[in-house]
């Protein structure tokens, strides 16, 4: 009996990269599926919710494929990993595309990097925030196991989450401002960076997720 890790496929993002990276770190009895089938996702032992692109398209595709409910359900009951846009749409609302209502799992908004925070530097900071930046751990968590404080992960984004509940913050990163680059609550962990593209430390985080029992 194999335990299944479902990567949610709603047409947003490079699922092949995510699934290949997870395949690289799973144990012998685990198996990765890339699925847009609500039943398969509901039956999986753990769920990975990736995402790239714009919030508007992301929410539209989720709703068109009728996957919003099963994703929310998974976020309530099993080890759940949101990545990039898959983290942002867990919030209440996004400033992107003139304002988009998201899944409202957590109170708080998704904000654009504001011009003033970026101009205040010695040099104008570029948007998207693209490349390898440091992540500072803000809470002890099984997903940080064997990942040193201030390890670098690969980011590519123009918006960031601002959760109302500060206890959600699992990691922060500095780009003109200090923003929340990882959140954690109960069985949910989510990252603004791309672990599947973050070499050794990214693979370690995915490995930690594949072994996590969903408890803090």
């Amino acid at each position, binding site marked *: 009996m194999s335990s299944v890790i479902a990567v949610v496929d709603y047409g947003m993002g*490079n699922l092949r990269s995510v699934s290949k990276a997870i395949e690289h770190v799973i144990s012998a009895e685990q198996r990765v599926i890339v699925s847009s089938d609500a039943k398969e996702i509901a039956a999986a032992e753990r769920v990975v919710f990736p995402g*790239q692109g714009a919030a508007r398209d992301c929410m539209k595709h989720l709703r068109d494929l009728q996957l919003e409910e099963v994703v929310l359900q998974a976020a309530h009951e099993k080890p759940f990993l949101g990545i990039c846009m898959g983290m942002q749409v867990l919030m209440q609302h996004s400033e992107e595309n003139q304002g988009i209502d998201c899944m409202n799992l957590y109170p708080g908004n998704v904000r654009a990097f504001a011009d003033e925070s970026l101009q205040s530097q010695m040099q104008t900071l*570029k948007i998207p925030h693209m490349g390898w930046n440091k992540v500072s751990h803000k809470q002890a968590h099984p997903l940080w196991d064997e990942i040193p404080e201030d390890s*670098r992960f*690969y980011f*590519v984004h123009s918006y960031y989450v601002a959760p109302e509940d500060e206890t959600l913050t699992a990691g922060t990163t500095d780009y003109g401002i200090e923003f929340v680059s990882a959140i954690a609550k109960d069985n949910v962990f989510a990252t603004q960076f*791309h672990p599947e593209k973050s070499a050794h430390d*990214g693979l370690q985080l995915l490995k930690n997720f594949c072994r996590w029992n969903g408890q803090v």
Partner: protein
Amino acid sequence: MSLAKRIIPCLDVDNGRVVKGVQFVDIRDAGDPVEVARRYDSEGADEITFLDITASSDNRETIVHVVEKVADEVFIPLTVGGGIRELDDVRRMLNAGADKVAINTAAVFNPEFVREATDSVGSQCIVVAIDAKQVSVAGEPLRWEIFTHGGRKTTGLDAIEWARKMVDYGAGEILLTSMDKDGTKTGFNIPLTRAISEAVTVPVIASGGVGTLDHLADGVLEGKADAVLAASIFHFAEYTIQEAKQHMASRGIEMRL
């Protein structure tokens, strides 16, 4: 500011093999792309770029398999360029495991393609590659124009205006190659790099001309590039990526070591 500047080794791929031409002519074989990519990853490359220089369309499919094989075992961002002409090409590369796709000539002939591509797959996936060549003569203010077909054909487009336009159209990053410098090993074109980097809001990758590790550092410190791309100094093992990163860090540049 803790965002690291990036080193991006570039693999020119012809018919499934890594090659590197000197000013687009003298082509030397530099190996199997999967092996080369794996080595660069282990040396600490921040991203890898593949440029498909295969001339014959019969062999175009080869690059898709190269990307698939590399993406299966190298877990850092991969960019693919060369011969990207329509949305279907973009999707095929992304589905094969590329994270970004570089559009060059097709953007010049059909700028709307850039808008269409970024609307469809997101700005973060679309790099616009710009090949620029100096057109001003001595004594005139510096001016560069966009060239296509490996630097053989001019378009009359001003490089700075073009870069700004491509960002307006949604490009998430600019890959800037100086045709005057490419293959010369005399360093990046600093005035060009700086002019473009200061003109646009998105990251700029400097390319063309690297011969020493100081050239890489100069691209960032003087050219204001967010990332530096080089090919031959890494392929022929003149320097490792790690040596390059150490050297840049020693000149005060934030790097992922």
